[in-house]
C-alpha cells in the first residue's frame, strides 16, 4: 500500500469497525414465555456459599436458589413453613421437631430428606464462619425417619425459629454436591461460585464481577417461577443503573436509588416506586467512653439539639419514620422500650463549645451524607463544634479496639438477621455485640438480654428485652434516628411483588411477572 494512503485507510477502518459496532446492540434475551428478569447489583456478592455469605447484596440469589426449614410470610414477621411443613417445640424450649416436606428435590435431582438437612446443619458447624452462630447452640440432631428432623439445644434459645427463617439461616445443600466437591474444605471452594439447593431457581452462571444467571428450576416442589431466567449484572454506579432502568434494560433497582430522584421516578409513566416496611434502622452511636460525651447530661442535650423528627422528615421525606423504640418497628411492642428526643430549648451555648468528631459511612442513595451534614449544622448551631468525615466500614469496625482514639459519634444503618428482638439487641448494644461500634457497656442490660434469651414464655421474654432497651434509651448511648422503608423502583410492567421486611433489598423473584 502506498504510504500516503496509510493514514486515511486506518481512519476508514476504525470508522467502519465502530460503525458496524453501532448496529450490534442486541434485543434483550427472551427465554420462553416468562422472559428474563433483568436486575443489577452495585457490588459483587463475593460468593454464593450460604454457610459463609453474610452480606445484604446477594440475598436475592441465596433466597432464590436455597431454602431453609422456615421462612417469613410477606409483609410480616410471622414464621411460616418452607422445607418444614410443621414443627413442635418441647415445653422446656430445648427440643425442636421439624416435620419435613416430602417430594422435594435438589437441583441435581437428589431427593431432600432429614439426613440431607442434618448434613447441611453439620456442614455449617464445620465451616464455622459467621452464620454458624445460628447452629452453635445445638447439642444433638436426630433423624428418626426421612421426614422428621429433631434438634436438641444446649440451652433454650428464644429466637431459634427466627434463626431458621433468616435469610442467613441454615439452608439445605445437596448432600451429593457436598460429597462430590468436598475437597479439604467442606466443598467451600466449589460452593463459592456454584449452588445446589432446592429453591425455585438454579444458579446457572456466576461470573465474578460481571453477572449471575438464575434459571427456573422446573422440578421445584412449590409454585414454579413465572420468569424463565433472572439476569443480575454488576453495575457499580447507581447513575448507570438508573439510565438502564429508564431505558428498559433493567426491570428494577432494588436499593440505593438516589433519594433526591425518587419524585422524578414517580412521575415517569414507565416506572413504579414501591416502599415496604423493613427492619432497617438508622442509628447514631455516641462514644460514652471518653470526654466530652461520657457526660450523660451532654448526650441528652445533644439528642435534643438534633430535632430528630424534623431531621428525618427533611432527609427521608415519606420514606422513613422517626424511631419510636430502641428496636426496629415490628420487632417488639414500642411501648416496652420507647424512645423520644423532644427538641430542647437549645441556645447557642448549650454544647459549651464541645468539639466532636463524627464518622459516617457513605451510601449510594446519598441519605447518610445528607443526614451527616444536617446533624453537623444543627449541633454547631447548638454550641457544639462538629467535624465530619466519611469512612469505610472496616474503619468503623476498628474503633472498638481503641475507644479513646475513636470518633465521638458514628452513624450507620443496620438491620437484624431475623425478626426477633434478640437478633437486634445482641449485636447492637450487648457489650460484645458486633455492631456495638463505640463500645457501650451496661452489665445490667447484658444480664436482661441473657435472661430473655433463655426464657421460653414470650411475654416475659419481651418484657426483659424491653427492659434492656429502656436502659439503652435512658443512657442515650445510642440515638435511634429513623426506621427507613425499603424503597425500590420497578418498571411498571412488573407485577407479583412480594416483600419480606426481614429480607432487605430483596423481592421474591419466583413471584415476579413481566407483563
Amino acid at each position, binding site marked *: 500500500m502506498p504510504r500516503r494512503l496509510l493514514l486515511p485507510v486506518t481512519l476508514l477502518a476504525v470508522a467502519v469497525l*465502530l460503525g458496524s459496532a*453501532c448496529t450490534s446492540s442486541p434485543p434483550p434475551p427472551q427465554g420462553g414465555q416468562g422472559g428474563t428478569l433483568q436486575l443489577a447489583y452495585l457490588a459483587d456478592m463475593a460468593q454464593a456459599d450460604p454457610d459463609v455469605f453474610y452480606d445484604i447484596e446477594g440475598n436475592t440469589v441465596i433466597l432464590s436458589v436455597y431454602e431453609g426449614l422456615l421462612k417469613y410470610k410477606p409483609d410480616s414477621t410471622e414464621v411460616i413453613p418452607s422445607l418444614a411443613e410443621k414443627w413442635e417445640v418441647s415445653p422446656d424450649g430445648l427440643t425442636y421437631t421439624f416435620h419435613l416436606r416430602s417430594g422435594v428435590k435438589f437441583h441435581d435431582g437428589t431427593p431432600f430428606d432429614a439426613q440431607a438437612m442434618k448434613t447441611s446443619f453439620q456442614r455449617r458447624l464445620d465451616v464455622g464462619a459467621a452464620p454458624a*452462630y445460628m447452629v452453635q447452640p445445638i447439642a444433638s440432631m436426630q433423624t428418626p425417619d426421612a421426614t422428621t428432623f429433631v434438634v436438641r439445644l444446649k440451652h433454650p434459645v428464644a429466637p431459634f425459629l427466627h434463626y431458621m427463617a433468616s435469610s442467613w439461616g441454615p439452608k439445605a445443600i445437596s448432600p451429593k454436591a457436598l460429597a462430590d466437591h468436598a475437597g479439604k474444605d467442606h466443598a467451600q471452594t466449589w460452593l463459592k461460585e456454584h449452588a445446589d439447593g432446592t429453591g425455585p431457581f438454579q444458579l446457572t452462571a456466576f461470573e465474578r464481577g460481571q453477572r449471575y444467571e438464575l434459571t427456573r428450576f422446573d422440578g421445584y416442589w412449590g409454585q414454579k417461577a413465572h420468569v424463565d431466567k433472572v439476569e443480575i449484572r454488576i453495575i457499580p454506579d447507581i447513575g*448507570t443503573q438508573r439510565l438502564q432502568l429508564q431505558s428498559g434494560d433493567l426491570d428494577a433497582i432494588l436499593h440505593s436509588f438516589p433519594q433526591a430522584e425518587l419524585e422524578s421516578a414517580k412521575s415517569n409513566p414507565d416506572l413504579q416506586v414501591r416502599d415496604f416496611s423493613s427492619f432497617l434502622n438508622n442509628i447514631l452511636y455516641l462514644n460514652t467512653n471518653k470526654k466530652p460525651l461520657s457526660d450523660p447530661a451532654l448526650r441528652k442535650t445533644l439528642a435534643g439539639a438534633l430535632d430528630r423528627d424534623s431531621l428525618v422528615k427533611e432527609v427521608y421525606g415519606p420514606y422513613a419514620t422517626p424511631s419510636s423504640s430502641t428496636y426496629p418497628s415490628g420487632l417488639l411492642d414500642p411501648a416496652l422500650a420507647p424512645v423520644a428526643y423532644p427538641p430542647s430549648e437549645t441556645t447557642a451555648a448549650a454544647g459549651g463549645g464541645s468539639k466532636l468528631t463524627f464518622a459516617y459511612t457513605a451510601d449510594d442513595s446519598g441519605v447518610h451524607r445528607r443526614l451527616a451534614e444536617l446533624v453537623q449544622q444543627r449541633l454547631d448551631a447548638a454550641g457544639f463544634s462538629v467535624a465530619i468525615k466519611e469512612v469505610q466500614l472496616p*474503619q468503623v469496625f476498628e474503633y472498638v479496639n481503641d475507644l479513646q482514639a475513636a470518633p465521638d459519634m458514628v452513624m450507620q444503618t443496620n438491620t437484624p438477621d431475623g425478626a426477633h428482638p434478640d437478633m437486634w439487641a445482641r449485636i447492637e448494644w450487648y457489650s460484645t455485640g458486633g455492631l456495638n461500634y463505640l463500645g457501650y457497656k451496661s452489665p445490667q442490660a447484658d444480664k436482661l438480654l441473657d435472661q430473655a434469651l433463655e426464657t421460653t414464655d414470650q411475654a416475659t421474654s419481651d418484657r426483659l428485652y424491653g427492659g434492656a432497651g429502656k436502659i439503652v434509651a435512658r443512657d442515650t448511648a445510642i440515638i435511634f434516628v429513623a426506621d427507613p422503608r425499603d424503597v425500590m423502583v420497578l418498571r411498571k410492567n412488573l407485577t407479583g411483588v412480594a416483600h419480606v421486611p426481614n429480607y432487605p433489598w430483596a423481592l421474591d423473584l419466583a413471584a415476579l411477572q413481566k407483563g
Partner: protein
Amino acid sequence: MARFALTRSASLVGILLGLSVVVFLLEAVVPADPVRAMVGASATPQIVEAKRHELGLDRPLPAQYAHFLSRAVRGDLSMSLYTRRPVRTDIAAFLPATVELAAAALALAFVLGGVLGLLTARGGGTPLRVGLVASASVPAFLLALLLLIVFYARLRWFPGSGRISPDLNAPTGPTGLLTIDGLLAGRLDVVRDALAHLALPALCLALGPAVALGRTLRSSLQTVLRSDHIRTARAKGLTGREVLLRHGVRPALNAPLTMAGLQVGMLLAGVVVIESVFAWPGIGLYTVRAIASFDFPAIVGVTLVMGAAYVIINALVDVAQVAADPRLRAR
C-alpha cells in the same frame, strides 16, 4: 540492549519493592479491621480471631511483610479478604478486561492525537481541536455519563454497560481479550459486540491522552518543519503533505512518545472511574471493591501489577523512541 534491559529490570524490582512497602505502611497507619468487616457482625470473637490468625494478620507488620515477600517472589500474592480467592487468580480474571480497554483507549488516543497533531501543525483542524479540548476538559465521570445519556439512552447506538452481551456465549480464551478471542474463534458477532461495548469507555479514556499527544505532536512538528532538511525537501518540489508525512513526522515523534508513556499512567488511573460508570469488569472495579473493604492483599496485588505495567510500558516507549529517532542510539 542488554544493559538497557538490565537497568530497567533493576529499577522495576526497586519500584515494586518501594510500592509494596508503601502499601504495607498504609496498612499500619490507617486503623481498620477488615477481618471483622469480612466475617460479619454476628461472628463470635473466636471466629474473628481464628480468621485473623488464619490470614496471618495477628502477626507484627514486619513479620507480615517478610511473609508476603517470601510468597510474592514465588508469584503467590496471598488471599483476597473479600473474594476469598488467591489475589493472583482474581487479577488473572480481571486484568484482561482492563488490558483490552486500555489498549483500545491507547490506540484511539494515538489515532485522534495523530490526526489532531497533523492537522493543527499546518494551521488547520480548529474544529477538531476545539471539540477534543472541550471534551477532554470535562471530568471523566461526567463525560462518561453524558456519552451514556446521548449514545446509549437516547440514540441506542451503543450498549450501556459491561463487556459483552451475555446471550452471545462468547469464547473464554485463550487471551481473555474478547475482540482477539472472537477473531481467533471466527466469531465476528462477538468481535462486533465487544467493540460496541468498548467504544464509549475507550473514548472516555482516550480523550485526555489524545489531546496531550496531539498538542505535543503539533509543537514538535512545528519545530521540525522549521529545520534544514524540511527546507531541502520543499526545495526538491515535494508537496506540503508529502513533506509533513515523509520527512516531518518521524523526527517529531520523540516528544509525543515520551508524553504517551506519561499518559499511560493517567489512563490507568482513569480506568477506576470509567470502569465503575460502565460496569466494566476490570482491575479498576476490583480495586474499588478492594479499597472499600480494606482488602490489603488485593490492594498490594493491584498496586504491584499496575506499577509493573507502568514501568514496562515506559521501557517500551524508550525502545520506540530509539526506533523512531536513530540519533538517540548514539547517546
